């Protein structure tokens, strides 16, 4: 039997606050399982325990109780992270390194070296479209560029699991869309993605499965389509429907005793509108 990509069992994390003489329960008896090849979203407001959970999974923080596993290996084992790529919430990299040096550095930490490392670095710089900025120091990168170099370093070891903490935080809609496409590309290649976010629309677009955390506890969990479907309602979208046809449909509904909850014209999303407007080249 193959192990799930991530397993969390009975996870509790308590932080002691010695100066205030109190304790903070960040995560309380959390259970979750991320299947291989899935895009799994951890949702929740700030302080709900998302980042702490991810840090425990990555072995950066030790649990007070319970255990976490990556592909069946305890997260505290060094070897559990060999096939894992991680993009932290904000791009935390050395500003004095250039884009290329950053990838070479993280590549060496991932066990790559020599020509293989150089080839992988070139490949990833091309993938995240930073070839021209490869010799620029990260101190001069924009937020979107930093996020892209962060993604590139996460993909260096050809991971089987990618953990993304707020991958689109502070990125413009264009960059955000690129990251979304990249996540979908990872999924198509069978790579498991575990991400945390509070950008709900985006999560809805890309995640197969979500857990919603509040005060360190999972309050909702399941497949996205199951969670969002309102079982007793049906939506019809009509194109070029005349007022007469609409009146006829309403009449039919009234006669059959069906309640019409809402009638409205569908709207595009603000993100879609923004992308269409900014992609169009100015005339003249």
């Amino acid at each position, binding site marked *: 039997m193959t192990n799930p990509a991530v397993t969390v069992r009975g996870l509790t994390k308590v932080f002691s606050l010695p100066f205030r003489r109190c304790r903070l329960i960040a995560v309380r008896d959390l259970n979750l399982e991320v299947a291989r090849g899935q895009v799994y979203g951890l949702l929740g407001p700030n302080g709900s325990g998302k980042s702490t959970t991810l840090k425990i999974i990555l072995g950066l923080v030790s649990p007070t109780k319970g255990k976490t596993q990556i592909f069946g290996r305890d997260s505290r084992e060094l070897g559990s992270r060999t096939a894992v790529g991680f993009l932290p919430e904000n791009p*935390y990299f050395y500003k004095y390194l250039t884009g290329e040096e950053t990838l070479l550095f993280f590549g060496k930490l991932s066990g790559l070296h020599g020509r293989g490392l150089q080839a992988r670095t070139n490949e990833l710089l091309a993938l995240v479209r930073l070839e021209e900025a490869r010799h620029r120091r990260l101190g001069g990168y924009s937020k979107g560029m930093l996020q892209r170099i962060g993604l590139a370093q996460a993909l260096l070891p050809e991971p089987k699991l990618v953990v993304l903490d707020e991958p689109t935080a502070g990125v413009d809609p264009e960059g955000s869309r690129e990251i979304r496409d990249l996540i979908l590309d990872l999924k198509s290649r069978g790579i498991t993605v575990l991400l945390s976010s509070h950008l709900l629309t985006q999560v809805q677009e890309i995640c197969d499965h979500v857990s919603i955390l509040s005060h360190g506890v999972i309050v909702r969990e399941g497949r996205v389509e199951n969670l969002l479907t309102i079982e007793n309602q049906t939506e019809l979208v009509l194109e070029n429907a005349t007022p007469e046809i609409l009146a006829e449909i309403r009449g039919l509904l009234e006669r059959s005793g069906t309640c019409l909850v809402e009638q409205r014209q569908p709207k595009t999303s603000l993100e879609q509108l923004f992308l269409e407007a900014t992609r169009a080249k100015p005339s003249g």
Partner: protein
Amino acid sequence: MQHPSFSPFRVAALAGNTFTGLVRLKVFYFLLLFALLLIGSSLFFARLSFQAEFQILKDVSLGAMNIFSSLLAIVATAQLIPRDLEERTIYPILAKPVARSEYLIGKLLGMLLLLALGILAMTALFLGLLFFREQILLGETTRSGLPPAQIAAAIASLKTSAFNLNLLPGILLIYLKAALLASLTLFVSTFASSNVFTSVTMVFVYFIGHLQATARTYWLQGHSSGWLAHTFLGLVALVFPDLQPFNLIDDVVAGTAIPLALFAKAAALGCVYTSVYLFFAWAAFHEREL
């Protein structure tokens, strides 16, 4: 797949990155100050007899090397881990299969490499100036018109006063002292709340380290020297390193050879202290919440 819990390649990558970071932070600017100090003192004392001039040049140079390398070891190491924690650059590193021991060793080795290059550069500046002044004085002596026997005696005396091999163990001890201070600073920074706290603590440790040998001798003379006193003093010597054995500059400047046993003892002490503090750093850091 079995993953090695310690890899020299990962440590080398971390050390190289630490070194690059420090170099790009322009910490080597202190060398400029060192060069100015040397040239200034050389010009100022050129009016004295050549023996006095060389003596002062060696004194100033080795003293400045000692101070600069100790300061660099403390100030630069104090910010290595706190900065990584504050800017959270530590997350993507430790999220890779990198052990915390590798991270600490890499940081220390990067710092030791920087100190080695700094001391090498200062040594080159110092010996270069010494050689330059020696050549000028040799030329002046040769052209002085004195009888050949007197010139030969003056040249021999000049050569003995300038460079001698005894300088090199003295410089090595300065490096080992800086390495010890870097390792202790790394340990303090693993639990300190700020860079300032680490630096201030280290300045205290530096002074206590220099004074404790004298205090110990005095104390043992005035009190019973039973096992309890020895244990207590041993503990003090562990917490505050005994820096006195590294202070052989006066002997070196005077041209006295450092006895091999004394040098070996100081060198061994430096290596043991550096390793013990690195172990303490790991003990404090390996379970720390990030």
